[in-house]
């Protein structure tokens, strides 16, 4: 019961709900647009089997084979691919693959990044220095190249649905851990010197308890922002891997990047529907997620927030000590 009450009172402070209330004008419009697009994406991913007219690897309907590179028609709204698949169905099923990869990649990297960041920031010393140098080295390197190397290791280049999804997700994770690490570490270093941490130490709390209960809970404010930024990057990396041929086999799952790769030759002969639709799907999803992330970023930064009659909010205090926008651009804090 107690938990329920706190839950309800906290609803207004949930990341997105709070910002939605705080926003005005155009900024609110951008946030809402982002939420709507992302909502459509999540809906499509969840109900892909019901929405899609055909299976992602289906080659024949009731009246025989679909045929390759058929232009859009009543049966195939978006036409068919060079391999004879229905483009619309593959675009819809692709949402599911993208969603799975984002969730696994972001969860894994949040988990690992937070753990390392807490340890590094709280314990300090040589562990901290070594981890920071490693994180900076990985951070400075092209995301896609690291992901390629990781994908080679994990899947050997090609695989079934779960193998492919895991390969893409883990390779993206390798690249994302440093980002969470940096943010959580910076926060931990800041929170560590607060009076309540010292009090906890004085009354004899153990280090793990202080780390997870006192420090971690006060270091999570930037997570929603990075979460959205990383989700969009995860989609782009997945598509990039697929485009370079490290994607998932077309018979195992639908993947937008793979479809675009197969469409390179089509474009030269003027066949537009095989590339335009999967590409638009990527752009829309990344756009939606990024709109949310941008809005959260602006709302947390008083220099960027559209001014409103109401005076200061908790986010002002937050942003005054640490402008997120600068950190996200890689400035070392």
């Amino acid at each position, binding site marked *: 019961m107690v938990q329920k009450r706190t839950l309800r009172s906290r609803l207004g402070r949930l990341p997105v709900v709070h910002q939605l209330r705080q926003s005005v004008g155009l900024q609110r419009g951008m946030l809402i647009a982002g939420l709507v697009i992302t909502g459509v994406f999540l809906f499509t991913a969840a109900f892909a089997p019901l929405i899609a007219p055909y299976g992602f690897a289906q080659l024949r309907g009731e009246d025989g084979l679909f045929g390759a590179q058929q232009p859009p028609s009543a049966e195939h709204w978006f036409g068919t691919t060079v391999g004879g698949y229905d483009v619309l169905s593959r675009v819809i099923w692709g949402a599911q693959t993208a969603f799975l990869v984002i969730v696994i990649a972001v969860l894994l990297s949040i988990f690992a990044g937070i753990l390392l960041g807490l340890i590094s920031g709280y314990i300090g010393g040589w562990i901290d220095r070594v981890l920071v140098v490693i994180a900076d080295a990985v951070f400075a390197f092209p995301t896609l190249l690291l992901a390629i190397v990781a994908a080679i290791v994990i899947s050997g280049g090609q695989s079934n649905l779960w193998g492919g999804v895991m390969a893409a997700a883990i390779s993206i994770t390798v690249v994302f851990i440093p980002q969470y690490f940096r943010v959580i570490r910076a926060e931990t270093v800041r929170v560590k010197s607060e009076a309540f941490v010292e009090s906890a130490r004085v009354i004899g709390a153990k280090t793990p308890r202080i780390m997870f209960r006192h420090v971690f809970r006060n270091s999570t404010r930037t997570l929603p922002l990075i979460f959205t930024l990383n989700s969009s990057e995860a989609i782009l990396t997945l598509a990039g891997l697929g485009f370079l041929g490290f994607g998932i086999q077309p018979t195992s799952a639908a993947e937008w990047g793979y479809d675009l790769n197969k469409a390179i030759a089509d474009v030269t002969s*003027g066949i537009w529907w095989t590339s335009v639709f999967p590409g638009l799907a990527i752009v829309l999803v990344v756009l939606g997620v990024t709109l949310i992330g941008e809005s959260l970023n602006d709302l947390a930064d008083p220099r960027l927030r559209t001014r409103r009659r109401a005076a200061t909010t908790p986010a002002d205090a937050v942003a005054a000590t640490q402008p997120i926008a600068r950190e996200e651009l*890689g400035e070392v804090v």
Partner: protein
Amino acid sequence: MTTTATAPAPGAPISASRRRRKLGGSLGRYIFVRFLLIFPTVFILVTMVFIFMRLIGDPITAALGGRLGAEELAQRRAEAGYDRPIIVQYLEYLGQIFTGNFGTTLTDNQPVVEVLTRYGAATFELAFYALIVAFIVGIPLGMVAAAVRDRWGDAALRVFAILCYATPVFFSGLLLKLVFSVWLGWLPVSGRASVRTELALGRQDGATGIYLIDALRSGNPAYVSDVLQHAILPGITLGLLTAGIFLRLVRTNVIGTLSMPYVDAARSRGVGEYRLVRKHAYKPALIPIITVIGLQIAMLLGGAVLTETTFEWQGLGFQLTHYLAARDFVAVQGIVALLAVIVALSNFVVDIIAALIDPRVRY
């Protein structure tokens, strides 16, 4: 992880800040420390790539596994030294890298450094075009967005910036190709130059491999226009990616400087709004761009791989995908390690330039 481990924690920030104070101040010192930092960065990346690539076994089996018999495979592995303990191989690899030997590709038996010198120029040229596009598009639009902040123009420009980021380079490349090369027929579909130009430029004495320079030196306007025509679409494709980032950065920074006290002071002295924006807000807002360019080098390289594949631009990235498809992991490992060195070096250069321009960075 108990109380003993926490003991150094309170002391750590003090010692760190003391060290920083000692190092800061002198530019020479700063450059020296930055230079030393190149080594751990390269070392870590090379080690990571090595460990990753060896996790899947040895490159010979990966490249030729299906094609050769077990005995012949074992023999080839022994010849290349892949049957020795992994630690020996690792130390040997580090030694090779230190002497500038990044290995020899398995499929076409070329030193990786050779591959780099042959195709690196093309990638460099592409990145150069992309940066020009990014500057021309990103910086002025960012200034405009900041000037019309929170109005429709601003919103449209910001959505444009997000679209630049949200569109994968290979998709924007395909779209541009579809519209301008296939439908309108204005520009060539792919490649760095038409075959005739390529041959003529290659025959020249002291060809740099950077086609624009070679074409200019040849003095033949037909070559120059041919090279430029081929460069437009790839340059725009890769440039827009960075342009979006510049736009956002300039906008944020100009808004930041516009709210500075000295801008208010200037306004109260009666300085006009146009002059205020031009003279007071833009200049300090542009300094961070230099630092960001350093970070963009990594992104440009990643984007170049995709752009080159889309446009069959014969550069390093195109070569990398070629070796990936052939499962030549020695080549992949070599190219990636070499790129790690390039990224570390260019970050070093950018850091130095930033420190020269803005003394605050040094402290």
